[in-house]
């Protein structure tokens, strides 16, 4: 008596509604912030491709093993995410510093020629996100008020 029973009319209706909802299930992006870049676009891949995230790929140690350019890509194209935060942390471990006015990452190319309470001055490497490449800048003044 505790086995299968035919559905009542009410339950049958509920199933019918569930069935029609099944045809347009929520998409993963429905519960996420809009992604300006890299929106979710499900793409079937061969089964022997990695189908999920690599183990520990959400750790700082993993991010520290990524190339600098990869870190910049993550920082600029995945903003507002944990990935951006981890990329920033990893860049800082490599002595890159974020300039909040230019919104670019800078690294001392050599010891600054001048350091005081308000700024340091010298030759820096910076990553130009518009031209997408590292550039050298001599005689640059890095004001500390713009240091993140």
């Amino acid at each position, binding site marked *: *008596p*505790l*086995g299968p029973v035919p559905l009542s009319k009410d339950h049958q209706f509920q199933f019918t*509604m*569930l*069935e029609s909802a*099944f045809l*347009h299930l929520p998409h993963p992006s429905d*519960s996420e912030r809009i992604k300006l870049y890299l929106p979710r*676009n499900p793409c079937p891949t061969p089964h022997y491709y990695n189908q999920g995230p690599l183990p520990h790929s959400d750790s700082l140690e993993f991010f520290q093993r990524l190339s600098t350019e990869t870190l910049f890509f993550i920082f600029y194209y995945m903003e507002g995410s944990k990935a951006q935060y981890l990329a920033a942390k990893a860049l800082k471990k490599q002595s890159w510093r974020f300039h909040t006015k230019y919104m670019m990452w800078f690294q001392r190319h050599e010891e600054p020629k001048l350091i005081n309470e308000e700024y340091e001055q010298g030759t820096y490497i910076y990553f130009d996100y518009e031209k997408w490449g590292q550039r050298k800048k001599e005689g640059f003044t890095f004001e500390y008020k713009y240091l993140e």
Partner: protein
Amino acid sequence: FDDPPGLLEKTEYLLKEWLTIYSAAPNRDPGKTFSAYIHQMNVQGILKSDDIITRFFRLSTQMMVELCYRQIPDQTQSPSTVRAKLFHTIDAYVKLIVLLVKHSGDANAITTKTNLLNKVLGIVVGVLLQDHDVQATDFHQLPYHRILITLFLDLNAPDPVLESINYPILAAFCHTFHLLRPRKVPGFAYAWLELISHRIFIGRLLGLTPQQKRQRAYDQTPVTDVQGWNFYAQLLIDLFKYLAPFLRNAELAKPVQLLYKGTLRVLLILLHDFPEFLCEFHYGFCDVIPPNCIQMRNLILSAFPRNMRLPDPFTPNLKVDVLQEISLSPKISPDFQCYIQPSSFKKDLDLYLKTRAPVTFLSEIRTTMQQSCCEPGMRYNLSLLNAIVLYVGTQAIQHIRSKGLVPNTSTIAHSAHMDIFQNLSVDLDTEGRYLFLNAIANQLRFPNSHTHYFSCTLLYLFAEANSEAIQEQITRVLLERLIVNRPHPWGLLITFIELIKNPAYKFWHHEFVHCAPEIEKLFESVARSCM
């Protein structure tokens, strides 16, 4: 009905204005331009009265919905492009709501802000319900799903004003989700499950400090911030109640299979991260989960407090009686005694437990449990049955302890409590007995006083059974919980191991163990894995 003339146009104008403002600087500081926008709303008369504000939100929400219904079928663009455009508009609308809530009244006007939020949520619910009724199988969950999740996430963003009203925000959303439960809005079921299992929602409702977790494991000083747990338990019960009729028919159609699998994932999250929650609320869950949903039930019953180390049930000569934990009563919510109805029956039950009289009461229990409905599987009031079993058991434990004793095979016998259990095991028909034994087995969980008492009770009923049919049914109830895939509750394992190991029960001498070669192999296999 009877929107004032021109309100629709004003609403459309204001929404477009807001969208322009929002798009101009979406992530900088919308608050800066908000004051100017409020002035516009005032000029348009939207903030003149509660009625107009309500209509404004209703019309706005309906516009969002209509936009989705218009855009979604568009095959000329990719689904992700269509969604991105829709979300841009909806997210802007939600941002407006959040700012209105945040700046409603002064910074400390909690009631004003909460009232506005409840109003908006009520309007979204109302529009959804009407849409669901009208569109039926053409109903689309997307606009409502997006509005609700974005509203929730934005209202839970780090902000001192929003933090001060966080609890009312959570309460409002829980109430909203309860109103939109799958039995009421089946077309919204998938979106609903996604909403209530969102990681931020789970974290906000169930997260406790480590000290609170330890306190909640046992019946000690109650932790004050428990409402989140109560809310979430209600939502899970809503989910189980919806699934129940479909899960009873074990062959699951694909739509149900998907919802069921999603439910299992959510339960696994809870088992891993919030086992204390499952421990506390297991009773209400088991009340609504169909008896044949054995694995799902096991999942819930396998939970144990994270600070507890379970003794290996397969340890040779494990002395359960000397474990410290079996003297501690687990906390159970809700209060199951309220399910023992009518109150006159409860009085009679208490009288019998106290005086062991009148004997006629024992048959009264059976008839009270039975319902007038004769449909298969509906003949017993399961809530009442479960409550009686747990109540009698907990009263038995108290009674034994009051005599300075501990529950064991001797002390549980020859009592009013065991009279009731023995009588039920003999007097009930197969269906009733199965449900009765299940109610006992539902208490075989992590080491605690209930697990220990009910383990002893089940073994006692086996030993004292006056027919092999009862012993067979006890075995069946245990076995079917063991042969499903993991996890298995600790109490279930130690009870079964005791049954097959202890020569006092003469388990292997029973005919039903050898009734068919497959059954014999099954028992041997289970025994091997237990030994």
